[in-house]
């Protein structure tokens, strides 16, 4: 009997239409848990470094996490992995919603797609019955629209459907995979799905997920529940509202956007508007949001309400979450939030990432204003800010005219356009658009997170450690008093000693050694979440979360029957983390790629930055080029990885 996991994967060869239900090796759970961990292992075993995003050999894997389908609150992430057309590295965007639990109940841990279908299809997984069905009638349909059309066609309102829109079909590099109120957006999963000619994957399951020691698991969940209730009624004082609670940012609930609108950059990550949140704008934004939201909604088995069904004036209903609420208004310099609610409806149906896409459009507008793109490129484009953004979005999703170039994202578009356009690509890391933030003083913790994580998206790296020093000693003492989540007591001392100004302030404090420990902790927790399918909003992404390194091993043990302690859990995620790094190293990732945009901070410290990177690499057991050493790999039972790295000349034999 398999516990927590189902022990079966679905293997689908799209070229031949062959579908297999494959039993997995139980040892894989012991070595990599599940979710991201076991996915990385599968890509390592089966996808050679020569494979490109749109090669048939690129695997597209939809995975559940180890705890999906169990009563663990907020364990609902569907993880999608593939070689990204943008970064050429192994990408792993995730979505909340209801899909992964349904897949578990259908009896599978993962769905693995290889090769390409000769025509547009959708997949219908109904317990043991799995079909590849014609989807030519869904061509060009919206990503949300498609989900309901498929449910109707199947006469199964309980089916959960993940679908792409036109952007995915057209292999737009920022195409997302949409599912209900959620989406797996970053790094072009929708494009790979479209390239494989999969319009959607629908799933319905009515089987059991087993718990090894269910009563004990529920007992442990009692404590988690109590803490959730405590945190929901006791927001953390002295931090911004958005950071004070648990769950993904409660963007649908909170209307106060002073922080985002005045601290994040507008346009192409260009302008800070420190006086934006005046009375007029506050009123407009608040009323737009309140009038548009029909209902606050959650993901599977989660008490929070990070999403919303929205019915904005003039467009059809859709579902919204998170920062997408304001990215288009800010990128377009449109003060009216109603514009964002309107354009996001179209963007969601097209199925595009709402972090990257608005920046691409803003980048195009800048190039036009600078005379690099011309009237000819913008022929037919309305002159007003709003109209221009709608027009550009249409071009990108349809890959028409200039849109065909922009659809590859800022990095590639800048190089294709040339004529100095490269200078306007000032907010990408590893070819991927970042949050529009430009700050003053180098932050050593953020420097490391931005530079080194495989996720390439800061929101899924940061979280447990406060973003800045508390001004007063009293505030620091109050913060550490009930900080049960720390893996080690010394982190409390770092907070107590950390000051906004002076010798104990950034960039020199926390020291590179401390920063390494802090970043490693945050990354570890994200990696655990991504293996378990837990929402980062209830764990790695927020301050003082309900799940942490002290209760996770107990929950995993009770669910799986595999007895595991903190050290054991850390070792497992370290193993997967190093395997992921080695996989990307084989695809060319090196130290030279690990750097935030030049203008991310005004005040930079090149020597300190090099030291930070070297210290962190050493802490991780990597060589100075950011490649795991043989010694490190051996400790993690990854001898086969060391051999391969040596065979390919990435590690020198006999030398670290």
């Amino acid at each position, binding site marked *: 009997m398999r516990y927590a996991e189902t022990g079966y994967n679905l293997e689908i060869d799209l070229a031949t239409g062959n579908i297999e239900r494959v039993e997995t090796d139980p040892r894989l759970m012991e070595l990599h848990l599940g979710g991201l961990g076991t996915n990385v292992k599968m890509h390592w075993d089966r996808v050679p470094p020569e494979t490109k995003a749109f090669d048939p050999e690129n695997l597209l894997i939809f995975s559940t996490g180890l705890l999906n389908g169990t009563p663990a609150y907020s364990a609902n992430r569907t993880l999608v992995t593939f070689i990204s057309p943008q970064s050429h590295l192994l990408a792993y965007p995730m979505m909340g919603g209801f899909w992964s639990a349904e897949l578990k*109940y259908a009896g599978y841990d993962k769905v693995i797609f290889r090769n390409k279908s000769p025509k547009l299809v959708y997949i219908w997984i109904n317990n043991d019955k799995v079909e590849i069905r014609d989807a030519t009638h869904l061509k060009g349909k919206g990503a949300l629209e498609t989900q309901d059309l498929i449910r109707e066609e199947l006469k199964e309102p309980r089916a959960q459907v993940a679908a792409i829109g036109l952007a995915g079909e057209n292999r737009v590099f920022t195409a997302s995979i949409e599912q209900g109120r959620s989406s797996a957006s970053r790094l072009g999963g929708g494009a790979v799905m479209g390239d494989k000619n999969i319009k959607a994957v629908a799933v319905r399951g009515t089987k*059991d997920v*087993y*718990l090894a020691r269910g*009563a004990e698991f529920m007992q442990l969940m009692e404590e988690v529940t109590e803490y959730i209730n405590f945190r929901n009624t006791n927001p953390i004082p002295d931090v911004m509202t958005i950071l004070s609670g648990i769950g993904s940012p409660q963007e649908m609930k909170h209307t106060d956007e002073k922080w985002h609108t005045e601290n994040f950059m507008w346009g192409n990550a260009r302008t800070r508007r420190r006086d934006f949140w005046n009375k007029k704008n506050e009123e407009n934004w608040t009323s737009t949001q309140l009038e548009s939201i*029909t*209902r606050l*909604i*959650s993901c599977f088995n989660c*008490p929070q309400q990070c999403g919303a069904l929205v019915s904005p004036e003039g467009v059809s209903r859709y579902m919204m979450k998170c920062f997408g609420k304001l990215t288009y208004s800010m990128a377009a310099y449109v003060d009216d939030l109603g514009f964002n609610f309107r354009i996001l409806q179209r963007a969601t149906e097209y199925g595009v990432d709402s972090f990257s896409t608005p920046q691409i459009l803003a980048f195009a507008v800048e190039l036009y204003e600078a005379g690099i793109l011309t009237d000819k490129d913008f022929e037919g484009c309305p002159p007003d800010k709003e109209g221009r953004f709608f027009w550009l979005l249409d071009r990108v999703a349809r890959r028409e005219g200039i849109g065909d170039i922009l659809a590859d994202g800022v990095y590639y578009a800048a190089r294709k356009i040339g004529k100095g356009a490269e200078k306007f690509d000032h907010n990408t890391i590893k070819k991927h658009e970042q949050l529009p933030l430009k700050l003053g003083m180098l932050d050593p913790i953020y420097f490391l997170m931005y530079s080194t994580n495989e996720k390439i998206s800061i929101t899924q790296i940061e979280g447990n450690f406060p973003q800045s020093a508390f001004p007063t000693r009293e505030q620091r003492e109050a913060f550490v008093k009930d900080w049960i989540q720390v893996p080690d007591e010394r982190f409390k001392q770092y907070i107590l000693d950390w000051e906004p100004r002076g010798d104990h302030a950034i960039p020199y404090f926390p020291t590179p050694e401390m920063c390494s420990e802090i970043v490693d902790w945050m990354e570890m927790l994200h990696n655990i979440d991504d293996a378990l399918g837990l929402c980062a909003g209830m764990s790695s992404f927020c301050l003082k979360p309900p799940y942490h390194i002290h209760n996770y091993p107990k929950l995993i043990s009770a669910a799986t029957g595999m007895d595991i302690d903190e050290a054991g859990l850390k070792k497992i995620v370290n193993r997967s983390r190093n395997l992921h790094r080695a996989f990307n190293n084989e695809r060319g990732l090196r130290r030279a790629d690990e750097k935030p945009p030049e203008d991310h901070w005004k005040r930079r410290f090149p020597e300190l930055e090099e030291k930070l990177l070297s210290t962190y690499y050493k802490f991780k057991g990597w060589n100075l080029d950011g490649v795991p050493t043989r010694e490190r790999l051996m400790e993690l039972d990854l001898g086969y990885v060391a051999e391969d790295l040596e065979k390919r000349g990435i590690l020198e034999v006999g030398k670290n």
Partner: protein
Amino acid sequence: MAKIKKKIKTIKVDADKCNGCRACEIVCSGYHSTPKYSSINPARSRIHVISHRMKNIWLPVFAGEYAPAECMGRDKYVIDGKEYDECSFCRASCPSRDFFKEPDSGLPLKCDMCESDPPLSTPMCVQKCLNNVLTYEEREEEVEEEEVKVEDVETGLGSMIPARQTWTSDCIIGVYSLT
């Protein structure tokens, strides 16, 4: 005929607050597995959250009585301008569909208010719904001795006003009687 006192157990459903998380389904299925919580499977749950997301329908419904045959006159609902299927919001386990049936045996499922010995303070779905959609209420009523089971059900949801059920303003009320 002699009168006896009977406990009426009610779960009040404030559907407007439901965020559609299905925690209620998960715990119900786990609680009713043997041994308790050895398996989870919402398809075995005795509560089902009917959802039509784009139509703003998130409606927890408790499994009611087994209906041996499809019923005759069915209801049509119009909510928010959209028309719904005849069986959309029915609580019965009935031959016409696979709702509220054990997935493997097809045996009907019925909410038993988590009856147990010793009794729970509140039913499990009520405990695990952290959004206070489900509220447990108990009251005593005097009834005729013979009347062992009352099968009365009241259900309600804002704008839905079908003919044969009693609907209250913005909540669904399921009244269950257990001796």
